[in-house]
């Protein structure tokens, strides 16, 4: 969960198009660190708001390689080094037979990294009594959060979102 700014403005919208237009306008007028809350992912809003690409795929790729290596190492070590047993005359390092588990352990570790990586990236923790701005932000409302320290900036932001069709405006950190 992204943290709310200490001082700023929250504008509520009923329409995702209005939200995206308002976010684009706010960024154009020089507001920084914008955030928005939406009930579903709106594609393209990341670019409008200047949010970079997630690091999760890189972590997952690293985990895929690590998992596969670990899988092979485990099989090689147990079969060739720790306790070599001749089973049916097969070679000790029967690497083609090891490939299934190499694949599975790679995918497993990558998927777990992906899962917990998302928890870390979004700062998700079990929290039954989380405070939200509005109960309908997970239903059918959209909110744009504009950090604004001074009163003039808040006024400017308020004018902007009003122009862009906000139907409710709240000031944070009075």
């Amino acid at each position: 969960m992204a943290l709310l700014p200490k001082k700023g403005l929250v504008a509520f919208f009923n329409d995702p198009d209005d939200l995206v237009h308002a976010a684009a306008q706010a960024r154009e007028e020089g507001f920084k660190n914008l955030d928005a809350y939406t009930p579903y992912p709106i594609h393209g809003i990341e670019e409008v708001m200047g949010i970079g690409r997630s690091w999760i795929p890189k972590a997952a790729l690293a985990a895929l390689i690590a998992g596969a290596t670990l899988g092979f190492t485990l099989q090689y070590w147990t079969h060739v080094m720790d306790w070599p047993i001749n089973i049916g005359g097969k070679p000790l390092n029967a690497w083609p037979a090891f490939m299934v588990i190499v694949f599975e352990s790679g995918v497993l570790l990558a998927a777990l990294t992906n899962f917990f990586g998302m928890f870390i990236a979004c700062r998700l923790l079990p929290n039954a009594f989380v405070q939200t701005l509005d109960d309908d932000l997970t239903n059918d409302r959209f909110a744009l959060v504009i950090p604004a320290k001074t009163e003039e900036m808040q006024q400017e932001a308020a004018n902007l979102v009003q122009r862009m069709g906000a139907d409710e405006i709240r000031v944070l950190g009075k």
Partner: protein
Amino acid sequence: MSTAPATHAPGLTLHGGMIPDGTEPLVDPKYSMRDVTEDVLKPMFTLPPLLWHVAFGFAQLCLAIGGVAIAIQMYRGLGILGINNPVGWGIYITNFVFWVGIGHAGTLISAILFLFRQKWRTAINRSAEAMTIFAVQCAGLFPLLHVGRTWKAYWLIPYPNDRFLWVNFRSPLLWDVFAVTTYVTVSAIFWYTGMIPDLATARDHAKKRLRSLSRSPLKLQKGVLHLQRFAYGTLSMGWKGSVRDWAHYERAYAQFAWLATPLVLSVHSVVSFDFAVSLIPGWHTTIFPPYFVAGAIFSGFGMVITLLVPMRRFLRLEHYITMNHLDLCNKVILFTSMIVGYAYLMEFFVAWYSEAQYERAQFWYRICGPHAWAFWTMFTCNVVIPQVFWSRRIRRNLLVMFIISLFVNVGMWFERFNIFVLSLERDFLPANWSYFVPTPFDVAVTVASFGLFFTLFLGFCRVLPTLAMAEVKSVLHNPNAGGTDRGFEIVRWPSGPGGDGHARDEKEVAAHGAAS
């Protein structure tokens, strides 16, 4: 998915614009985001009807009968089952492969169709994934029982132990342990990831209901709502829906699809290695991996239809899981039925063409031996009956498709029975030959697995969001129905009249904008 340019051409809305050519949107334009939330959450916030209690009770009864059978088996050992020499793999292994196969449709819908940008999957992926996870749980039951001394099943896991032994990584049976456990883990976390935003919606809905009841004297109802708020709040991990979180979330979700796609294709391939890597006539063939995967998708879609037809009716989700969805599922059934049919015939061709004496004898035995009825049941249910889906009218007839899906389930169960039991009945030595007969314990444990599956699925229908709400909202035609049409992105049906059925890319959108 079209990405929004930062600046917009005049007359062009964000999500790409004009209604093109009267093709049908995925969800009826009159439904708004609020409707989606309320329709999906309704079963979670109301008491179930009598019919649900009857079904749930029946499923639990089946589970209880099987539980008793399992307890007796634990006490007396595997001898009470039908398996013996030479048929060492009987009903349990048949059930194992049957249930693993059922799971495949869920992952196909959630991962492969996601990668192919098949947006219609949004309405059915949640329930299909639930089906996957429950089916794999049922599957996992059988190898654990089949090992006989279930309390020693942890020996399958390689860990440093005071027996000073390692597992045999060169054995396909061990590959299976890894494949199935990885599959169930990845499916479960993929499912849960998809559910987090929807659980947050449920949490906020409970909060809202509590606020509206703040002055009411309904103590019990308030208590339940507090409990629901706590449960959904905990499970949703404090999800708020910030676009910064959505950016990570969406990457992670897409990443899951990339990981699950090769995984789902590998699981049933690895299951088929249990057989294909051995030397038994009828098992030792290279066609097994693709044949098993196609069969798994076929049986999985059969079960999807079996579950969705009643579910959409009783939970009143017909507007979201439409006839078009069922039609497409039926097309998948038809297609995979033909792949399976091809595989059956190819097995016979190869048996003849190889001139391998035992292989030929095995396939003669299948079509005219004492168990030929099992072969012909399979062939009729899997290859002949699904051909009626060539007719569009039948693909869109609820009753007929439901009945056919039951035939598919039966047929696919018999496919596994044919492969495993019939191959083992006739091995190399005629003195070994036998005719496999299951005992009541085999039947009871099979019934238990169905009881477990339906107990879990019926529970799912009442306590978790059965539709991926956040995803469905993103394909709505008009997110706030009742207002003016905002020209939201319309996601159309594939192969509709005139159009490729996909969201157009930016260039096309720009061209549209310029033209108007």
